[in-house]
């Protein structure tokens, strides 16, 4: 179906492509077959060619007795005398379903609004026929093929091996490209095939090499059945006819002459009988062939509920795939699990081998003392009778087990809030409720965990703040230090402002006060008691660097001078402010 769709799509695409081409020739529509006579089983090719324009429809021929399937579309574009010509060709595979003479009627195609009808085509289908016995015996056949069914009386469901033999005459130098063309069968289902060892045989007055090919066939129904004729193509290499020269050398250097041969078997028939209705075992479940059975079980000393593994091996010849596990309807008080099956074949056709079932059973009662009898029945087509294989009961020791407690399960509560045993489950809920995304628990979400850190961080921050506040409250010197540092910071801004305003008096007044405050804080004494003399008396004694002492002295002197000569330039005041900032910075850094 997919292939058909693809072909249809490809056809449509090509038709659309063809629609874009300007044509220089008249439109035409022709239908043709590659052969007018074929054998049953062969396939002919029907071609519908649309030239000059694309068709609005592609007719699909329908002839009873012929299976016509679209097999592809091709397009050919050519330029002839400057004019472009496009041809779309749709091909169909034509496979006859019976012999006879068929007519593919004329088909209508609408091309550019013009309806064109193709000519009817005749196809003759002949029955493929094997060479006659006289032709074979005369040795005129280079190669031929035979089909052999081992018996003409078979049973429905029976599996047997048909044999196809390919004969090659002794002068055939080589043989290849063997390809089966058709394998018609009526009432048989073909299975695997396998090539046997070749051998030589005398047919008429010639010697032939025989290649046997075994084919597994299964009888699908009752009644008259037929198999074949099988057809095949092959290429044989024969000695060249006109080679001349020395016969001795020619046997080494003769390259040979290839020849395509068509091989056809005869049709073989058989009659399929139904399985007899008499003496059908009760446990017969369709097994046909010749089998033996082996059953093993273990362990056989168990507790109620423990698993016992059964291995049932059915070996022999027949349709192994169709064999089912023997009936166990009598296995009461056993819990029987679904068995698994494995098939191992020992021949190439898959008709001989062993099918092994593995099954778990668990005894449900301590009263069990044996594994029940196992029986397996099959129909043997060789003797036309039913057979039953029996495995006698096997001793079994089953001990009563304690009630198996299950693990403690979360929230295993009573069945209902009222502790009553309900008769059935409660009905479904009509509302879906609040939907949530299926996800892990909150404790696994980083965001949730991070959120829990927030109150802890807040507490730590508050705790640190509290400690610092307390520390400040209990340390007046530290408090003064911070206050003075703040005062100096603001004072420097004032100094710069006064300098910009060229307000010398305010500048030096502020400078002097700042010097007093800063040195008073450093020396832990009242600011009003600070004079220039304190620099040498106390600050030097505390090991202040000489640079700081010098800077402070200069600043004090400038303040004293300003009382007498207050008018100074803005630039000079700025430099004094910078000097103060530097000196005070160094003073604040001193550890006193």
């Amino acid at each position, binding site marked *: 179906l997919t292939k058909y769709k693809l072909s249809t799509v490809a056809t449509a695409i090509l038709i659309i492509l063809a629609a874009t081409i300007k044509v220089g020739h008249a439109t035409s529509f022709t239908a043709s077959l590659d052969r007018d006579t074929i054998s049953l089983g062969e396939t002919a090719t029907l071609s519908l060619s649309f030239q000059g324009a694309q068709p609005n429809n592609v007719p699909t021929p329908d002839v009873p007795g012929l299976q016509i399937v679209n097999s592809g579309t091709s397009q050919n574009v050519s330029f002839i005398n400057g004019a472009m010509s496009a041809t779309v060709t749709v091909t169909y595979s034509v496979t006859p379903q019976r012999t006879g003479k068929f007519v593919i009627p004329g088909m209508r195609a609408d091309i550019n609004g013009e309806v064109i009808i193709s000519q009817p085509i005749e196809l003759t289908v002949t029955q493929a026929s094997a060479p006659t016995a006289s032709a074979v015996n005369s040795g005129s056949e280079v190669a031929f093929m035979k089909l052999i069914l081992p018996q003409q009386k078979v049973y429905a469901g029976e599996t047997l091996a048909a044999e196809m033999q390919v004969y090659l005459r002794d002068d055939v130098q080589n043989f290849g490209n063997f390809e089966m063309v058709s394998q018609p069968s009526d009432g048989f289902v073909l299975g695997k095939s396998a090539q046997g060892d070749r051998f030589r045989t005398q047919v008429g007055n010639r010697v032939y090499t025989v290649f046997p090919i075994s084919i597994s066939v299964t009888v699908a129904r009752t009644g008259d059945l037929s198999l074949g004729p099988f057809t095949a193509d092959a290429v044989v290499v024969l000695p060249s006819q006109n080679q001349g020269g020395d016969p001795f050398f020619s046997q080494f250097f003769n390259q040979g002459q290839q020849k395509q041969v068509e091989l056809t078997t005869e049709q073989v028939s058989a009659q399929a009988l139904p399985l007899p209705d008499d003496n059908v075992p009760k446990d017969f479940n369709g097994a046909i062939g010749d089998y033996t059975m082996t059953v093993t079980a273990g362990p056989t000393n168990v507790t109620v509920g423990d698993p016992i593994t059964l291995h049932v091996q059915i070996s022999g010849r027949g349709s192994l795939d169709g064999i089912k596990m023997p009936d166990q309807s009598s296995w009461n008080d056993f819990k029987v699990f679904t068995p698994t099956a494995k098939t191992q074949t020992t021949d190439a056709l898959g008709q001989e081998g062993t099918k092994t079932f593995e099954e778990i059973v668990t005894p449900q009662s301590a009263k069990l003392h044996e594994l029940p009898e196992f029986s397996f029945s099959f129909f043997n087509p060789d003797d036309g009778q039913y057979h039953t294989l029996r495995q006698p009961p096997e001793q079994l020791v089953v001990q009563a087990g304690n009630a*198996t407690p299950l693990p403690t399960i979360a929230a295993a509560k009573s069945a209902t809030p009222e502790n009553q045993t309900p008769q059935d489950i409660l009905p479904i809920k009509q509302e879906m409720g609040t939907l949530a995304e299926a996800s892990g*628990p909150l404790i696994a979400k980083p965001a949730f965990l991070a959120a829990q850190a927030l109150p802890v961080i807040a507490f730590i921050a508050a705790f640190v703040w509290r400690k610092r506040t307390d520390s400040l409250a209990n340390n007046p010197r530290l408090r003064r230090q911070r206050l003075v540092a703040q005062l100096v910071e603001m004072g420097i801004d004032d100094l710069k402002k006064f300098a910009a305003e060229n307000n010398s008096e305010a500048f030096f007044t502020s400078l002097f006060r700042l010097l007093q405050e800063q040195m008073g804080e450093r020396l832990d004494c009242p600011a009003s008691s600070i004079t220039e003399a304190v620099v040498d008396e106390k600050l030097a004694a505390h090991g202040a660097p000489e640079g700081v002492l010098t800077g402070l002295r200069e600043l004090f002197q400038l303040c004293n001078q300003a009382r007498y000569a207050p008018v100074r330039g803005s630039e000079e005041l700025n430099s004094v402010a910078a000097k103060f900032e530097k000196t005070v910075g160094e003073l604040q850094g001193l550890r006193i």
Partner: protein
Amino acid sequence: MRSQVYFAMRHLASSQKAPEDWRTPKASAKFDRAMAIARRLGLRQSSAAFMRVVLSVLLMAVLTENLYAAEVATDFSAASQLYAEGKYPEAANAYERILQSGVVSPNLLFDYGNAEFKAGSVGKAIAAFRDAELLAPRDSEIRANLGYVRSQVQGAAPAGSLWRDWLGQLTLNEWSLLTALALWLTFLLLTAKQFRPALAPRLRGATGFFVLLTILLGMATGVLAAEHYSQQTAVVVSDAVTRSGPFDDAQNTFAVHDGAELLVVDHHGDWVQVADGSGRTGWLQIKQVELIPGA
């Protein structure tokens, strides 16, 4: 519905005009109101354009969410209809498809469990009810159905314990939130004491209480969290036989029935090692069980 979303996205990509063509009048009205507020706030054109984009994206998110919820609701109704018609396997498949889309609710799991039970899958029903119970432990209907389905399982019913039942009154998330709340209150009080030391004597009792409460709640959460991650349960979804090792050819050990609830001991590839109440252990393939977290 998807075409609406697509249209809205394309609309945003092409311009910031109001989405007059959106087929949801409510959504369009919301958009217009938001834009009017933006204009009243005196936002300039560029700011208004930016606002328009932001609002459109937010609106898109809301719209998409609503559309998705509507789609899920439609599927839920269809599944419920199948259940009502007695098509239990089909209903179970329909509920399962919704769950596989990544959404969950206690009611959805409850209905799924019902459908599985009616379809004959006792193990899957128990797993669904247990999942539902984890989300809504105080839902009596879920507990009732879980109890009833458990009563249908061959073998002893799983035993509970008082303290575990008590803890199971709340979900792990609820315990986690309570613990978080107690933790926040505790540190709020501790922080308040830092700012108002004078209040410390009066807050001492409350602080102690919340510290203790936080510890207790934290322990409960910890126990449930440990169960969640380590006490996984395997609910058998069809009769099976455990193996002595995590491979197909290992020896059979013991049989377990559909609906049996076993403790998961270990994992190995596609196998889980389970233990029953008597201490027997065996390996089952993951496809033979439904795994349920411990809490």
